[in-house]
């Protein structure tokens, strides 16, 4: 099982000091956080993509390319890549290029984006988000798998005899996750391709998240990629930890109360009861995270949101130390002990390449 972090890349005033980081500071902090993630033994760093303030990560492959050069092991991913307003041709090129630079340590999570004005800024209409995500991804999928593509559709200019360069590393396209919080169409899409499905699992009661994940698992089996419990599921989560849980609550409360996403809404206590947010000791985070498996079945990727709401870099780095030293090692052990052998790991470049070679040597056996 993979453990990692995902960053939204928000520039938020620290409510305890009134200080707002500059964009430059925030960008550098995101890089430092990614490097720390590798240092403490996490498996994945994923960046968001936004095209409006107060967010900085508008250019994910620039950031991930830089991080790739300064890391050895960690998988670089996105949360999410906008499959709607981005040109699928450019996604195909950018991420194949990144794949070469990072020696295959790359995957992506597709998402639609829910900020209305971003769509018209790129010449699109948010009401067509679902059909756009479907058509664009279908083209992206072909561009990575067919050397020469002829294509015509609704949302971009036609292609005749087009080859996306560079070709994916070793002829193996990056693994793709599809992120959605409520759209059955996206669960269906992920299941059809046999791709992964990711639920951010942050603002939603578990009963809701479970419906979407169950649908994806059922349809994954329907489309013949494996049994439902072999489908590739990822979950988000958010935590704030201190050795003593009361210290964690006390320290996190002002950030919670003033965060643009929760402020003025439910109390911290209500929010931790109704959603997966956990504020407490490392042991509480371990216990809560293990309940995700009970709820959604064995899954392949757990990403935590750690750097948001104006938390200072120093605090985030301390959080990553706790995550890497006290939480993840226990979770690895516990999840592994509970997982049946037939449940696969999340695909990575090496495993996809091995599967491809096996298929080439023995085409009769389905991969």
């Amino acid at each position, binding site marked *: 099982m993979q453990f990692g972090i995902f960053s939204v890349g928000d520039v938020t005033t620290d409510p305890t000091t009134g200080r707002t980081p500059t964009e430059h500071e925030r960008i550098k902090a995101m890089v430092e956080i990614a490097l720390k993630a590798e240092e403490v033994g996490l498996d994945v760093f994923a960046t968001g993509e936004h095209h409006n303030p107060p967010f900085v990560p508008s250019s994910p492959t620039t950031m991930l390319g830089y991080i790739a050069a300064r890391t050895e092991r960690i998988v670089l991913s996105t949360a999410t890549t906008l499959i709607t307003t981005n040109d699928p041709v450019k996604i195909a090129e950018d991420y194949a290029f990144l794949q070469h630079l990072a020696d295959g340590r790359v995957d992506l999570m597709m998402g639609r984006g829910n900020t209305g004005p971003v769509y018209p800024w790129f010449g699109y209409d948010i009401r067509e988000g679902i*059909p756009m995500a*479907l058509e664009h991804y279908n*083209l992206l999928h072909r561009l990575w798998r067919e050397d020469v593509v002829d*294509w015509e*559709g609704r949302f971009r200019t036609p292609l005749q005899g087009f080859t996306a360069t560079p070709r994916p590393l070793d002829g193996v396209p990056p693994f793709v996750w599809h992120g959605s919080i409520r759209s*059955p169409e996206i669960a*269906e899409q992920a299941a059809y391709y046999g791709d992964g499905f990711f639920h951010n699992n942050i603002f939603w009661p578990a009963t809701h998240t479970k*419906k979407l994940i169950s649908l994806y698992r059922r349809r994954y089996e329907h489309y013949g990629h494996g049994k439902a419990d072999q489908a590739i599921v990822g979950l988000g989560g958010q935590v704030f930890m201190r050795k003593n849980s009361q210290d964690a609550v006390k320290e996190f409360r002002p950030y919670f109360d003033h965060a643009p*996403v*929760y402020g003025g809404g439910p109390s911290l206590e209500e929010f931790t009861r109704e959603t997966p947010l956990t504020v407490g000791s490392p042991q509480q985070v371990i216990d809560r995270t293990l309940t995700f498996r009970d709820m959604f079945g064995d899954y392949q990727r757990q990403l935590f949101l750690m750097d948001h709401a104006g938390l200072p870099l120093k605090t985030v780095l301390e959080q990553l130390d706790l995550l890497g030293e006290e939480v993840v090692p226990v979770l690895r052990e516990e999840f592994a002990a509970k997982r049946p052998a037939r449940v696969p790991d999340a695909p990575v470049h090496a495993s996809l390449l091995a599967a491809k070679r096996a298929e080439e040597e023995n085409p009769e056996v389905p991969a």
Partner: protein
Amino acid sequence: MTVRRIVTVSAGLSTPSSTRLLADRLTAATERALGDKGIRAEVRTVELRELAHDVMNAMVTQVPTGELPGVLADVADADGIIAVTPVFNASYSGLFKSFFDVIEPGVLDSVPVLIGATGGSPRHSLVLEHALRPMFSYARALVVPTGVYAASEDWGSGDGGARELNERVERAGRQLALSAADHEKRDDDPYGEPVAFADLMSGLGT
């Protein structure tokens, strides 16, 4: 015996409240009219005041807290809704509007709704027609023709006001019962049987 589920929503704030009083009268009239058809009414009456904080939580973060998820589930399962608000600033109250704002789009589609309002003076009676009815029409609800407005003076006996109010309440209850009796539940769980991928791609470039 056939059963129909009725959810009554009262946005009155005081206790006792004339809004709740009207809501109860409309509910009783609907129960009687359903009973005349051999249908038992299963009623849940919701005081929005008790849900006010949860409605606001859902509004600002989309996280349903407290009793709200259960109430929203009952609304989604209702064969008829009785919605009654006091008139504030010449329209429905903000709490009343907010409650219906946190209901998912489509939930009220083809659901019979009886609208009611209360106010201090009869001069606001058209609030039913310029505020409540368009809002529920937008939600694609089936708003029954008779809406009931009760001004303070309607609760007295002068000039036949109380008798007229009674008649309107009974007529509105009969109309809601008629629609609720015919209401068919849609099985529209979007996470049940999904639209197949091939159909999702129809008309798109592949």
